[in-house]
């Protein structure tokens, strides 16, 4: 009955279905576990004000316990109620991440930070509910997080945005949020939690010196953790990412090429048959197709080639692979001779290479608008097959020193 009473009376619990419903409507598969988790942190903008408001309402309703005879401390008295509310919100956050990406150690960092932020806002809301009149505390709990999140995202200094733990627009499948930043932001939100807990405990204490001491320590702790988090966030721009270093899943294909993909894309390895057929066709034509396709390779070097896979469109797998191969011709610094000399001529033939490769195997193609180039760099591909292959191979190797 007590649990039913808590469920019946917890504002956070009643708000959670709305959050879950909202998330189910907008949930889409993420590019990677870390990317999905980071994208889900944008839900903090919705969750934190709701949690803070729920806690403030709860504290307001139970403000009377400050005047009731008690053997149990204030935290023990209110924790079961908060646990239900916070638990529901955290569970909804984890559910949302799971809807977008499979379980992975890579999403634990952003999710842990998000949970800390949720708990912190809950405690801030609870404290406001006890200390301030409802007419002030409730609007403050709704508007405070909203203003902080939106304002931090709007100002040019990215450090404040990173501090809020909202990283929408992050990350590609080859990136993860920098662990150093995650640690710093976790320290920041963890400090806020501890300070709020200490302040709640002090509500029970009537000694002025203890209150002053805790207040001064709290201010010092918040200042120190904010300074640390801001300094940790300073080296990063808008996207606080580092290269993803987790191991890939690899498989040798019948054509002889070795395909390595991120664990969440392992299904590609099972469905590589059609794509591998295309690789064999290109081999037979004499195209210098790389021996290793590595989804996680960031730079063109040797036989390692960045390959773009998109699991959402398996029918375009050949086109995706051709795009990855063609990227080798994207000579950002100009074409180099085998001796390393920089030539001023043509810089990007990737669109032509990709279209030609796809056409050779009659696969459907997708428009890769990001690979467009200036008309001045276009060259006709000869109709003679051997000349065409020679030109394609020349382009594919042009960038490599």
């Amino acid at each position, binding site marked *: 009955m*007590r649990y039913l*009473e808590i469920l019946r009376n917890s504002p956070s619990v009643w708000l959670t279905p709305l959050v879950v419903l909202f998330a189910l409507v907008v949930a889409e598969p993420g590019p990677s576990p870390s990317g999905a988790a980071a994208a889900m942190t944008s839900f903090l903008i919705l969750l934190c004000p709701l949690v803070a408001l729920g806690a403030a309402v709860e504290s307001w309703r139970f403000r009377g316990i400050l*005047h*009731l005879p008690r*053997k149990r401390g204030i935290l023990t008295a209110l924790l079961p109620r908060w646990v239900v509310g916070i638990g529901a919100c955290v569970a909804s956050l984890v559910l949302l991440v799971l809807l977008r990406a499979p379980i992975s150690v890579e999403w634990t960092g952003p999710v842990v930070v998000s949970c800390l932020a949720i708990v912190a806002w809950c405690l801030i809301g609870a404290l406001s509910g006890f200390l301030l009149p409802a007419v002030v505390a409730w609007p403050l709990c709704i508007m405070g997080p909203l203003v902080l999140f939106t304002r931090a995202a709007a100002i040019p200094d990215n450090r404040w945005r990173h501090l809020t733990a909202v990283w929408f627009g992050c990350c590609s499948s080859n990136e993860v949020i920098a662990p150093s930043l995650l640690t710093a932001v976790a320290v920041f939100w963890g400090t806020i939690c501890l300070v709020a807990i200490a302040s709640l405990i002090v509500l029970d204490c009537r000694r002025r010196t203890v209150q002053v001491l805790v207040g001064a320590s709290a201010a010092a702790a918040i200042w120190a953790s904010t300074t640390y988090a801001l300094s940790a966030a300073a080296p990063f721009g808008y996207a606080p990412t580092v290269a993803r270093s987790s191991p890939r899943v690899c498989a040798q294909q019948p054509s002889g090429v070795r395909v390595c993909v991120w664990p969440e894309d392992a299904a590609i390895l099972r469905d590589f048959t059609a794509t591998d057929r295309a690789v064999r066709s290109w081999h037979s034509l004499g195209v210098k197709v790389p021996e290793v396709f590595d989804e996680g390779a960031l730079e063109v070097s040797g036989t390692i080639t960045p390959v773009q896979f998109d699991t959402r469109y398996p029918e375009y797998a050949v086109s995706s692979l051709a795009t990855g191969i063609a990227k080798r011709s994207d000579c950002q610094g100009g074409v180099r001779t085998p001796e390393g000399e920089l030539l001023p001529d043509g810089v990007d033939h990737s669109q032509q290479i990709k279209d030609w490769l796809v056409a050779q195997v009659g696969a459907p193609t997708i428009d890769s608008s990001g690979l467009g180039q200036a008309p001045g760099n276009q060259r006709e591909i000869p109709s003679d097959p051997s000349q065409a292959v020679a030109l394609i191979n020349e382009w594919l190797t042009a960038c490599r020193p």
Partner: protein
Amino acid sequence: MSYMPQVIPALRGLTVEEQVAYCAWLQGVSSSESRRRARLWVKRVGLGDAARQKMRTLSGGQLRRVGLASALATSPQVAILDEPTAGLDPTQQMRFRDMIKSLESEVGSWLIATHDVNEIVDDFDQVLVLASGRVWSGSPSDYLGSVPEGPMRAHRAFIEVTRGM
């Protein structure tokens, strides 16, 4: 020892039974036992019909009963009641005093703080008067002392006692 405050906070959203159980739990009674005792004491203070009523809908007299039930749900040896009849009309005061009398044997000792000196004469074994930082103690007959019979006798006795302190 348990304590019934002068102002009984109504925890919004809770029913009478839930508040009594919660208050007992706050004072260290286990969760299941507090629920059992709440059911018992809510009936014993005469709120059986209002057990599932929300706290915010209660009258002042009913709130006092909830406070009493909450205090007694911990099975105390000593129960301290702070102004238990303050703000009640005479009928409610009488009922409340009768209820305390009926529950007298449930608690080892009752310590009741009150400004209603008429209560002292009729209901208590021992009287403590606090005034100007001093304490006077004695039996109700000592308290009434040599004050002659007549209207407001208890009040006149109070003036006499405090004058002599």
